[in-house]
């Protein structure tokens, strides 16, 4: 492809268009508030609390996805069984259904009118309007991204490596932790980052299940509704700043470690 080729200019034009669509509103957002306004916002305990809650619940959801999603992803990557395609389609469902529908669906199950919800209430587990509710929603929307990423990672590892490990005396469990897990580590990190990113950005489902305690996207929405754009922008900037810094640090630490192996 050379500069004389019309395809070259088409790709350049589309590239610029894509970057403009992403960057134009973001740059506008990041430059909209003055430094003094930003400093004033960060001193607001409600803001700090909501950003912390967003990050904390997102990581909790990612950790739970890691614990229960990893063995399941391994099963999907290694075994052929009846109904596997149906199960894979079910896993993808939370990605394609509208977010408020996710919230309504979860509320339907955990509400006091449902037998499951009443059992939870009897056990003292409150989902609606609680951190448990937020984490439940975030797992629901984030876990498919984690499972799909890790499943791809497992599939890329030759089963022959596991066969050899077992022929050398290692059990399946030992083989998993000494061979499969380290080789799939990168895809796990990518899956966790995607799951966390998805969880931090979730709004539509959380606002239905747990308006309070307020995660940052709900707080931004509330301030926008109540006071307008000017009051919601600084909170949004801080959320973007914290998330970006956190993801950058995580990527550098975890993916660098992998290179060192």
């Amino acid at each position, binding site marked *: 492809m050379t500069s004389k080729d019309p395809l070259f200019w088409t790709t350049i034009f589309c590239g610029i268009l894509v970057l403009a669509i992403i960057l134009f509103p973001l740059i506008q957002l990041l430059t909209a508030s003055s430094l003094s306004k930003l400093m004033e916002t960060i001193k607001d305990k409600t803001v700090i609390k909501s950003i912390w809650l967003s990050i904390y619940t997102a990581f909790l959801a990612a950790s739970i996805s890691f614990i229960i999603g990893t063995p399941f992803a391994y099963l999907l990557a290694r075994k052929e069984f009846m109904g596997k395609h149906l199960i894979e389609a079910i896993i993808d469902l939370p990605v394609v259904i509208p977010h408020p529908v996710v919230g309504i669906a979860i509320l339907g199950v955990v509400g006091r009118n449902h037998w499951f919800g009443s059992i939870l209430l009897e056990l003292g587990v409150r989902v609606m309007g609680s951190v448990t509710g937020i984490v439940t929603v975030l797992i629901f929307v984030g876990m498919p991204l984690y499972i799909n990423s890790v499943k791809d990672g497992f599939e890329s590892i030759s089963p022959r490596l596991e*066969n*050899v490990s*077992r*022929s*050398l005396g*290692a*059990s399946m469990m030992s083989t998993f932790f*000494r061979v499969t897990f*380290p080789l799939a580590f990168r895809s796990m990190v990518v899956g966790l980052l995607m799951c966390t990113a998805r969880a931090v950005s979730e709004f539509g489902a959380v606002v239905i299940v747990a308006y309070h305690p307020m995660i940052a996207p709900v707080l931004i929405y509330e301030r926008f509704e109540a006071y307008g754009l000017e009051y919601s922008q600084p909170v949004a900037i801080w959320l973007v700043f914290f998330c970006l810094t956190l993801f950058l640090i995580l990527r550098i630490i975890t993916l660098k470690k992998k290179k060192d192996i």
Partner: protein
Amino acid sequence: MINIHDLNLKVGNFALKKITFDIGENEFFVLMGPTGAGKTMLLETIAGINTCDSGKIIMNNKEITNLPPEKRSIGIVYQDCALFPHINVKKNITYGVRYNGINREESKRRLALLSEDLNLEHLLNRLPVNLSGGEKQRVALARAMMVKPELILLDEPFSNLDPRFRDEVKEMIRNVHRTTQTTFVMVTHDFDDARELGERGAIIRDGLIEQVGKLNDIFENPKTSFVTSFVGF
């Protein structure tokens, strides 16, 4: 040493059917057949990676049919070597040490011996990605030999090798077989490799054993029309 009796296994549309043959102590047995005949599937069934539907595998008078791979004492070396890419050569070779009750001193002794025999001393700290095809094959063989299995399965060990490494690896396998007196089963397409290394063998087609016996007999007195055409008459 190992007796395979009436072994059957169906996977998808392919099946191993009524596989029956014996391999003697310290023997170098060669399994030959066209692509898709079921050679690797049979090796993996002997290794315990596939579980057979019916039949028996008896090794040293002990039935191992339902034992998992880690309890069989059968090593396997694949044509692509299947070296663990995230650990260096030394760690690859000593991978199985902890599962086989080998203490540190014995592990060091065996590693030194195998490294010398297979000319691996200068490669021990390298990652598999930095090895040539012949080096990878030698490491895979050393890794299997390290735990002293009763049987070693070689799945087309020379097929991915550059011609200049073939003779070198072949010679090393011959030496290892002679010095360790371990029983070997090798899958190959190449009749020259089979004749150079093997004593007895079998021809397999579509999951069925066509002929078993001494290699000279197979090549000189083929018993079926398929074996006749396969060995080139």
